[in-house]
């Protein structure tokens, strides 16, 4: 479960957040439930915004047959 938390799957996190926003008022008069959902929503927004702040991705180059034809690329 730890591994899942470290690598945020953007799509899944966003889907969970959208579900929470849609169903937050389904709790009726249960303010405890609403507050819990709200806090989870804030947590997800924070994680997603952190991910958006990344300005670079990682590049990994495979070894193919014609690899050595190319100049050295990081």
């Amino acid at each position, binding site marked *: 479960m730890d591994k899942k938390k470290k690598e945020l799957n953007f799509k899944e996190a966003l889907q969970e957040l959208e579900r929470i*926003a849609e169903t937050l008022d389904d709790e009726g008069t249960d303010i405890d439930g609403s507050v819990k959902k709200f806090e989870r929503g804030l947590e997800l927004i924070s994680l997603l915004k952190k991910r958006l702040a990344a300005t670079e991705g990682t590049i990994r*180059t495979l070894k193919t047959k*014609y690899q050595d034809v190319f100049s050295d690329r990081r």
Partner: protein
Amino acid sequence: MPGLPVLSVSECVRQLNELLKTQPICVEGEVQSFSVSQGRWVFFTLKDAGDGSILECFMPAFRLRLSLADGMVVRVVSTPSLHAKSGRFRLVVEHVEIVGAGGLRQAFEQLRKKLEQDGLFAPDRKRALPRYPERIGLIASPDSAAYSDFIKVLNARFGGIEVIVAPCLVQGEKAAASVQEALRHLEFESPPVDLIVMTRGGGSFEDLMAFNDEALARAMYRFPVPIVTAIGHERDVTIADLVADVRASTPSNAAELISFHRREVEAHLNTLLATLEQKLTEGIATIAHDVDRYGQLFASALERETADVSHVSDLFLSASQRFFTRLETERAQLRAWPSRTEKVLRSVIERSRERVKAQESLFSSYDPKRVLKRGYSIVRRGGRVVQSFRDVTVGAPVSIEIRDGALEAEVTEIINPVS
């Protein structure tokens, strides 16, 4: 004839073929009478455009990787041979190459028609791109501007994506096989890629021929995830572009098509935050409103029945006290939340508090103990409060509750101010 060995016909054919097969030749000519028999044998003649002389050609169908048609100018690498039974001379073709752009275009058109008929370009087969890809396979030459343009624009839009590059040749004889090999490598990546981008820069029709290869097209069609192509200039359409799930006009455009810009996503997140805040404050406001409403119901009930006022007032006060305690608990947690949310919730709680306080003073004013303190008394007959002259008759015994005690009395006269 002296000195010459005497051969049978079949021995002659055999010896000639032994001789001929050591002499591979390359012949250029125009294709005529092209036909394929039983899907397995290809026959055509090569015509000399100058004097019209011809040579028959033959090859097994599997060896022909191009679409040929009459009129095309080709070069064939072949072994001359005599067909044993018929004695006919023909070239057994190893390899065919189309010469000149005209021929190439014709081959392109034929292949396009064929693959279209086979359904490789079908619109309903085009797959939707994943909205937030985590892993992208990139088929390109790492030295090219196409590669660096794509990476640059992608990073400018959405960071944190893993790009797995499968380097390949993008033009020349070995390119078609190289691109297919790159595709194969990416197919077996684990964890799998979410989509593929195949890209190279502009070039002539001949330069782009590697992407007009039938085997590549079929491999792309079978590929398990969507493929985006950005090959050559916008006006150059290759077979690969037609098979692709999405065709981009340039490598930069490809980066735009596969990713959202982080600004758009942030705006979406802010909208969701606003929705969460709105719904939460509405939820709390609803509860506060309910307290308000019950308070009013209690007040109107009191006007009709003052018997258990103290008890009811106690109930209400303890309920509102519990509500306040709950709100205070939430308020303590509020400090951990964004200050904007905190401000809004604070004001909702304050308004609720004021409304409840207003109810409290209303209740106090109905508290019979206060009424008695002001000098009023409560008259009861048979345990029930006397509110009207109709509730008693002359001579009826009544109890009178006053501030510091009670009196037992009897009605001596009824005075009705109205009559």
